[in-house]
C-alpha cells in the first residue's frame, strides 16, 4: 500500500474515537452539563465491547455492549449531578476513577486474548463514516430543530428555560445519556477496531483529549472534526518517526498528543472573546428548580 495512503488512513483511525467521544460531550456541554467522566465511560465501553464480543464471538454485540456500558456510567453521573445536585467536577472525576478501576477489574480475564474485530465494508471501517454522519446529525439537530434550540437554551440559562416551562432536568438527562453512549462507542471502537484486544487503561487519556477538543472547537460540531483530525495527525507523528528511524525517543513522540492538547487549550483559551461568547453560560452550574 502506498505509504502516504497508509499515513492518511492511520490519521483517520486515530481521529475517529476522539471525534465520537467529543461529539457526544459537545451535546452534553451544550445543555449546560460538564461531564469530566468521558475517560471513564470510554474505557468501560472498551472493556464491555471487547468482553461481549469475546464471549459471544460476535463483534456487533460488542458494539451494542459498549454503547450500553457508556450509557450506564452516564446514568450514574446523571443521578448524582442532576437529581442529587452534586458537584459536577468532582463527580466527573470520580466517574473516571471508577471507570478505570472497574474496567481494570472486569478486563482481567481478557488480557492477552485475541479480539473479535469488526469487519470492514468496502475496505472501510463503518464507524469512520458513521462518525461524520453523527457529527452532521448533531449539527443539524442543534441548529435547525426546536429540540436543538431547547438544548441550547437550557445550556444558556437553565432558570429562563425553567421559567418558560421546559423540563431542564429531563433534557439534560437525555443529553448526558447520549454523551455516554458516544463515549462508550468510542471505547468500543478502540477495542474492536483500532487494536482488537483489551489492555488495561487502553484509552490512554483520549477521553481527556476529547474534553479538550470540545473547548478547542468552541462547542461547534464541524470545528470538532478539524480538531480531532489535527490530533490524529499529531499521534501519527510517533508512528511516522519510528518507521523513518528518527533518533527521537519514543516517549517524547508519545507525549506529543498530550503536549499538543495543552498547546491547543492555551491558544483557544487565550482568545477569551471566542470562549466567553460560545461557552454555554450555565455550564457546570447546579440547578434546583423552585416548586
Amino acid at each position, binding site marked *: 500500500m502506498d505509504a502516504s495512503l497508509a499515513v492518511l488512513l492511520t490519521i483517520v483511525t486515530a481521529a475517529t474515537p476522539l471525534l465520537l467521544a467529543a461529539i457526544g460531550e459537545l451535546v452534553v456541554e451544550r445543555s449546560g452539563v460538564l461531564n*469530566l467522566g468521558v475517560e471513564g465511560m470510554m474505557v468501560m465501553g472498551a472493556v464491555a465491547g471487547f468482553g461481549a464480543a469475546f464471549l459471544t464471538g460476535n463483534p456487533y454485540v460488542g458494539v451494542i455492549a459498549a454503547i450500553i456500558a457508556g450509557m450506564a456510567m452516564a446514568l*450514574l453521573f446523571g*443521578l*448524582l449531578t442532576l*437529581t*442529587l*445536585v*452534586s*458537584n459536577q*467536577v*468532582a*463527580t466527573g*472525576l*470520580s466517574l473516571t*476513577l*471508577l*471507570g*478505570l*478501576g*472497574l474496567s*481494570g*477489574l472486569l478486563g*482481567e480475564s481478557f488480557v492477552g486474548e485475541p479480539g473479535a474485530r469488526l469487519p470492514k465494508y468496502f475496505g472501510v471501517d463503518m464507524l469512520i463514516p458513521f462518525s461524520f454522519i453523527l457529527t452532521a446529525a448533531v449539527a443539524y439537530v442543534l441548529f435547525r430543530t426546536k429540540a436543538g434550540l431547547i438544548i441550547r437554551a437550557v445550556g444558556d440559562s437553565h432558570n429562563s428555560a425553567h421559567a418558560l416551562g421546559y423540563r431542564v432536568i429531563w433534557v439534560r438527562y437525555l443529553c448526558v445519556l447520549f454523551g455516554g453512549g458516544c463515549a462508550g462507542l468510542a471505547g468500543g471502537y478502540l477495542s474492536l477496531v483500532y487494536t482488537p484486544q483489551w489492555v488495561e487503561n487502553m484509552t*490512554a*487519556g483520549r477521553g*481527556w483529549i476529547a*474534553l*479538550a477538543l470540545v*473547548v478547542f472547537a468552541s462547542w461547534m460540531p464541524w470545528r470538532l472534526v478539524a480538531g480531532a483530525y489535527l490530533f490524529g495527525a499529531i499521534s501519527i507523528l510517533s508512528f511516522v518517526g519510528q518507521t523513518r528511524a528518527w533518533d527521537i*525517543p519514543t*516517549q*517524547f513522540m*508519545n*507525549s506529543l498528543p*498530550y*503536549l499538543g*492538547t*495543552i498547546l491547543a*487549550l*492555551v491558544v483557544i*483559551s*487565550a482568545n*477569551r472573546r471566542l*470562549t466567553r461568547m460560545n461557552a454555554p453560560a450555565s455550564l457546570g452550574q447546579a440547578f*434546583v428548580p423552585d*416548586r
Partner: protein
Amino acid sequence: MPLVLEKRAERSTRMALLSPVLAILLTVITGAIIFALRGIDPLHGLYVYFIEPLTQLWSLQQLIVKATPLVLIGVGLAVCYTANVWNIGAEGQLTAGAILGGMIPVLFPEWQSPLTLLAMLILGIAGGMAYAAIPAVLKTRFSANEILTSLMLVYVARLLLDWLVRGPWRDPQGFNFPKTITFSDWQLLPMLWGSVHAGALFAVLAAVILAFVMGRMLKGFEIRVSGSAPRAGRFAGFSRPRTVLFCFLLSGGLAGLAGITEVASVVGQLQPQISPDYGFAAIIVAFLGRLNPLGVLVAGLMLAVSYLGGEAAQVSLGLSDRIAKVFQGILLFFILGCDTLILYRFRWLKTQVSATAAQPAE
C-alpha cells in the same frame, strides 16, 4: 416526581459529619454485595478486607506507610479544592518531585552526607512546585482549564520518567532492567518505627500546619472566600490569580515531597512505576476528609486500609487487587451523593389544588 430537593437555609453541620460515615457504610454494604456475587462469604470478605489489616503490627505500620503520601498530597489538594482550584495533576507533580530529587543520588552516587538527604527533599519539593506552576500560569495568563492541563502533564511526567530510567539514568549494572541504582545510606529516609519512615512525620506536620492556616489565618480565610464567592474575594481585595498560584505551588510542593519520600524509602530507586496512583487516590482522600486537613489525616488512614485490604484480599480470597481501585471509586461516589444532604433536604411535594366549590368572596 413526588420527592423533591429543597435548599436548606444553612449548611447542616450534622450532615457534614454524618455524610462521610454514611458513605463508608454504603461502600461497605456494596463491598459485601460484590463479595457475595463472587461467591465469597460477605462477612469473611469484609473481615479480610477492612479488619484484618488493622490486627497486626506490621500491617499497622504498612497502613501508616501507605497513608503518608495520601495525606501529604491530600492536604494540599484539600486547600486547592477549597479554593475551587482543580489540581488533578498531583500524580504528575509527585513524579516530577521524585525525578528532581532523585537526580542527586543518580548523578552523584558517592555523595553521602546529611546534606544529601536534605538536598533531595528540597529538590523534590521544588520539582513538584515547578511542575505545578505550569498549569497555574497557563490558567492565570491564558485562562486554560487547569483540570485538563494538569492532567495532561501527568502523562508527560510519566513518559519523562520512563525515558530517564530506560535511557540516561539506567543502572549500568542493572541487568538491563529499567531502573536506576538503588539508593543507600544518606540517600534514604531514616526509619522511625519498623517500616514507618520519616515521611510520616512530614505528613502529620503538614496536616497540623495547614489545619491552623485554613482555620485561623487570614490566608485560609482568603482561600475559603476565593473558592465559595470569587466576586466577594475580589471585593475583599484578594487576587484570584495569586490564590490560584499559591494553591498550585502548595499542593505541587507537597506532592513533590510525597514523590521524593516514596522514592527515598519504599521504592528505594527510580523506576517506571513509583506510585500506585497515589496522586489520584489523594483526590478521594481530600473529599473524604471534607477538604479539612485534619479530616484528611483520618481519611488518608482509611483509604490506606483499602490498599492493604486489596492486597490481603488477593492473598486470602483470590480476588484481584484491582478491587481496591473499585472500592475507592465507589466510595467517592457515595461521598458525593451523601454530601447533597448537607446543603439540601428532601421534601414530599404536597398534592395539588382540588377543584371543589369555591368559597364566597369576602
